[in-house]
């Protein structure tokens, strides 16, 4: 018997979790995918295929080779827009001995307690019939069968008409159709209504499960039931609980109270806040009843905690700052001369436009605006990239990166900003050479590309590309 889990499909609510793949969304302190892998292991399955989509890198980093669960995990990829079942059709014969298939946010709720020895074997499905959970739009959210004929018909797209009773297998699969279902499941788990799971963390006698490397000063008040993940820091006089699930790498600043809420991994909660009945994902506040999302653009209140800050970003910051200072020094005198000339002749000026700078702070950034772009003086000014000097000054002041994303407009680019997990507003970007700001799809593609492939080398490439091409364009008279 084999398992195939599709982690990249749309969930309808996972996108609200701030860019993390929904399969890694914490449920009762553990990622959802971990329940799937445990289910596969408890059925005696060892061969698991994870089909990845959005967030592939994170899912792969988490599940690795599956040895933690005694599984052998292999990976596949599915292009967006292609149905998960089509993956099965590529080589249908390999699934015929038995198939556990999940392609939607399904929580396999256990109906049976673990054995006295702590093992968690579940009844293996018989050879006849199938167990099926339909999802929306006629597709299957979850399928389990060991009958070759049934599996063939399922793969062929003629899903079996009836499902056998899941209770016979000791499982009740819950489809997490919306944010409300996700939130309520977390609340049920933390309250202990579903008691058949080994919850993460130490303790538990009084309903408080606390992970490793969690700093809790004496003045913090813990009101169980609650679950706190690993590597968290609670500041003095914070009040946590009741019914709170806190993920990994969360900071709760002093005097903040949290109750009946789910706080996702890598979130900072500012000082003296009161969070009740919410899901918080980084700077995103979600009202679970209605699914209303609100991005709090104030890092003193809510903020993501370096979601994927890597060592390479530190190197980029240092090198970028040094290069900006050098460029500033080189450009200062020619800038002063040419800018005074251009201003004096009324041929252009810097216009301030509100954009999101580092830490998503709104700042008015200077953009060069020429009245006569064909003039030689203007071409010399931009050909020497002197129009970038004020931005370089902001880079030197730490308000921008040297190379990165084009600074986004708080309103016009809100959608793009919400798609970016990491945002590096910069003086120079792929867009610096673009003639206008109109090509939104290119802007989106560039932003997503940079987020994924940023590196000191890529920054160097962008910088040289912009400086050299602008210079050549000046020489060519364009």
């Amino acid at each position, binding site marked *: 018997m084999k398992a195939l889990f599709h982690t990249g499909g749309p969930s309808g609510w996972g996108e609200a979790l701030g860019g993390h793949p929904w399969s890694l969304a914490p449920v009762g302190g553990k990622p959802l995918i971990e329940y799937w892998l445990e289910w596969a292991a408890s059925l005696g399955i060892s061969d698991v295929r994870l089909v990845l989509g959005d967030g592939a890198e994170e899912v792969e980093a988490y599940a690795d080779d599956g040895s933690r669960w005694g599984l052998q995990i292999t990976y596949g990829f599915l292009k967006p827009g292609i149905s998960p079942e089509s993956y099965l059709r590529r080589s249908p014969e390999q699934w015929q001995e038995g198939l556990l298939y999940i392609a939607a946010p399904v929580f396999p709720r256990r109906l049976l307690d673990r054995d006295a020895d702590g093992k968690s074997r579940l009844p293996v499905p018989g050879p006849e019939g199938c167990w099926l959970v339909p999802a929306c739009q006629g597709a299957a959210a979850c399928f389990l069968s060991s009958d070759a004929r049934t599996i063939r018909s399922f793969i062929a797209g003629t899903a079996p008409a009836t499902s056998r009773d899941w209770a016979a297998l000791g499982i009740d699969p819950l489809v997490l159709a919306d944010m409300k279902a996700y939130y309520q499941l977390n609340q049920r788990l933390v309250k202990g209504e579903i008691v058949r799971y080994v919850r993460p963390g130490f303790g538990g006698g009084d309903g408080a499960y606390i992970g490793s490397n969690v700093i809790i000063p004496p003045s913090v008040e813990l009101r169980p039931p609650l679950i706190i993940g690993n590597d968290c820091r609670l500041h003095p006089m914070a009040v946590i609980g009741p019914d709170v699930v806190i993920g990994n790498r969360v900071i709760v600043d002093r005097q903040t109270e949290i109750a009946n809420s789910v706080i996702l991994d890598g979130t900072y909660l500012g000082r003296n*806040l*009161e*969070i009740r009945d919410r899901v918080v994902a980084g700077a995103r*506040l979600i009202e679970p009843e209605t699914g209303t999302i*609100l991005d709090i*653009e104030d890092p003193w*209140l*809510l903020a993501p905690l370096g979601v994927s800050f890597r060592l390479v970003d530190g190197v980029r910051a240092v090198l970028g700052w040094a290069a900006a200072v050098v460029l500033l020094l080189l450009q200062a005198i020619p800038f002063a001369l040419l800018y005074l000339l251009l201003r004096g002749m009324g041929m252009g000026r810097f216009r301030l436009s509100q954009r999101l700078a580092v830490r998503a702070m*709104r700042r*008015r950034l200077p953009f060069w605006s020429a009245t006569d772009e064909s003039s030689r003086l203007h071409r010399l000014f931009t050909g020497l990239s002197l129009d970038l000097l004020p931005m370089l000054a902001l880079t030197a002041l730490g308000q921008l990166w040297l190379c990165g994303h084009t600074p986004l407009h708080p309103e016009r680019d809100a959608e793009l900003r919400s798609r970016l997990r990491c945002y590096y507003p910069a003086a120079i970007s792929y867009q610096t050479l673009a003639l206008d700001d109109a090509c939104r799809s290119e802007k989106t593609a560039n932003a997503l590309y940079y987020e994924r492939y940023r590196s000191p080398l890529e920054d160097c490439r962008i910088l040289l590309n912009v400086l050299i091409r602008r210079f050549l364009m000046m020489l060519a008279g364009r």
Partner: protein
Amino acid sequence: MDMRIERHGEKAVVVVSGALNAAVVDGFREQVHAWMKANEKVTQYVIDVSAMDFIDSAGLGVLIALLKRVTERGGDIRIAGLLAKARVVFEITRAFKIFEIYETVEEALRAES
């Protein structure tokens, strides 16, 4: 951020529009303080935020500082017309417990001190 202050007898309405954030709080504070100094008899203020689409912790801080200043003189500050986004900021920062919140300016002006 744009603001104007309208006097309604012994009360004043401070109309704030746009974003009340760290970039503009200094100007906002100075304008309000100057108006308060010139109109010392006014002790009841209504902040009309029905056109304020964004507020951050700095903006909230300046409102709390104004509240402290006004209450020291025996007055009061009420907030009217909170939009959804600003309302959430008021909720999570517990500013709801500090300010009297009204749906409209008219309600805030009518309410007894």
